[in-house]
């Protein structure tokens, strides 16, 4: 079952996730700058930032426990493990037997849990604020995330992400159904919340009244900050590839061949750039929402994914 070629697939997947994640972040920043009629930093700026942080020393509060040191590594590892379960360029993931979409949701939750724990560890007031806000948002994001992918899982009859991706891509255009669209819109709203973008969180500011993710990682510096930042970018890439390869997996390679993989990678890049552009449009055209209005937005998403499942039941007449 576990051959040399599947080992190759896994290693290639890890490399792709780590290499593409900062690029996606840079591209979104560039598109955002375009809409705001600015020049903006180059698309490779996140690489330079991470390289710079890697060369610096960490300054750590003397009050922190081991959790503060372990949390970035645990979060990074959890996100990367989730990445091994999500099809990116090839639909047949070798680790597909090890976990399905529920494992992905909980691996992301594990990463979030440790980041929130570390934010409390240093005992700064901003950290605690960020941690509680993050958990507040997460309590609404997680059920909606599960429900929206369940709508698709119901359609193909499996919760295995590789299987879903294969099944939807073999269905072709007939896969586009009411529940497909509803679940996609729901997951897009979730993606905004998960990647910390504007109606929910603002990735570009450290204003204490609004920040969520930035408040949590305020105590980190140097190499640890580099790992945390890279982990956040990877999470963003994974959420985008969930959107791209669960709902529109057309073009993904189904078996190992150099040409197929090259095409799949190119298609994947185009898909995530389109999604990133959509995200940038949302971010430039809306204002940051008040924290206590966020449940409204997230319950829209929850309701849409619920509607997706209900309309699946109605249309199929189960």
């Amino acid at each position, binding site marked *: 079952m576990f051959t040399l070629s599947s080992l190759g697939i896994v290693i290639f997947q890890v490399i792709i996730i780590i290499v593409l994640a900062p690029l996606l972040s840079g591209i979104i920043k560039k598109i955002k700058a375009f809409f705001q009629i600015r020049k903006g930093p180059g698309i490779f700026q996140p690489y330079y930032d991470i390289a710079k942080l890697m060369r610096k020393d960490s300054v750590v509060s003397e009050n922190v426990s081991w959790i503060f040191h372990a949390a970035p590594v645990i979060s990074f590892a959890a996100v990367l493990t989730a990445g091994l379960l999500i099809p990116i360029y090839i639909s047949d993931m070798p680790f597909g037997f090890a976990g399905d979409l529920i494992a992905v949701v909980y691996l992301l939750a594990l990463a979030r849990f440790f980041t929130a724990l570390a934010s409390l560890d240093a005992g700064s007031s901003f950290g605690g604020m960020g941690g509680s806000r993050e958990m507040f948002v997460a309590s609404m994001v997680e059920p909606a995330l599960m429900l929206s992918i369940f709508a698709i899982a119901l359609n193909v009859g499996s919760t295995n992400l590789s299987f879903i991706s294969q099944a939807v891509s073999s269905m072709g255009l*007939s896969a*586009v*159904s*009411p*529940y497909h*669209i*509803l679940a996609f*819109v729901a997951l897009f709203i979730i993606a905004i919340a998960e990647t910390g973008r504007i109606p929910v969180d603002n990735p570009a500011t450290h204003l204490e009244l609004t920040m969520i993710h930035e408040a949590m990682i305020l105590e980190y510096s140097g190499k640890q900050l580099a790992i945390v930042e890279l982990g956040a970018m990877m999470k963003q890439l994974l959420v985008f590839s969930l959107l791209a390869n669960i709902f529109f997996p057309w073009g993904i390679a189904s078996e190992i061949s150099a040409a197929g993989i090259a095409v799949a990678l190119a298609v994947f890049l185009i898909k995530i750039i389109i999604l990133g552009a959509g995200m940038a449009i949302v971010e430039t055209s809306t204002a940051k929402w008040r924290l206590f209005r966020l*449940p*409204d937005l997230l*319950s*829209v998403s*929850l*309701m*849409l994914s*619920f*509607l997706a499942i*209900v*309309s699946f*039941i*109605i*249309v*199929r*007449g189960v």
Partner: protein
Amino acid sequence: MEEIVFGSGIMQLLIALILVSTFMILGSTRLYSCVRAFGMQSFLLACVAGIVAFSTGKTDIYIVAFLTLAIKAALIPYIFIYIIREIKVKREIDLYVNISPSLIIGGILVVISYYLIRSINLITELSSFALSASMSLVSIGLFIMISRKKAIMQMLGILIMENGLFLGAISLTYGMPLLVELGIFFDVLIGVLIMGILIFRINRTFETIDTDMLKTLIG
């Protein structure tokens, strides 16, 4: 009556989008975005009527589709925006039930309407989606009427109910006779005008269109 139209993929997509636009009205706190979502809903409804007309080839359904587009998707939203601008009302709507609970109640209403429709055993499963969507539009419209304070939102609620009835009629019988349809359109238009004038009067007498205030006596 053949069931091909309402089973087709594009029709199901349109009906799902109509449901989404209803939830957009339920989920927004701004008057303008409610009116915009209503316009979108009516536009989608006109598309549904257009497809039914195309597949059955009846000219009077074409006329109905065109009238939906002209009156419900263009004229009525314009009247709404005119009223909002003229009486300089505060742009946020006031609620008896908050946004998140209203959305959840909306979802429950959709499920209830589905089960009600399913218990009527005379339709095939293809048009049951359209019919339960129409039923949920009616019940969500009613819910909007009782859970919003502004008189404008109550006007919008009754129009959503009317849209639901229209969707139900067109999905069950491919539209009522043209004369009846024309009568309904005329009724809706006159109703909107009268309600608009009423809102102007309420606003002039009470200096608010918050229906909560109508309970207080003014001598």
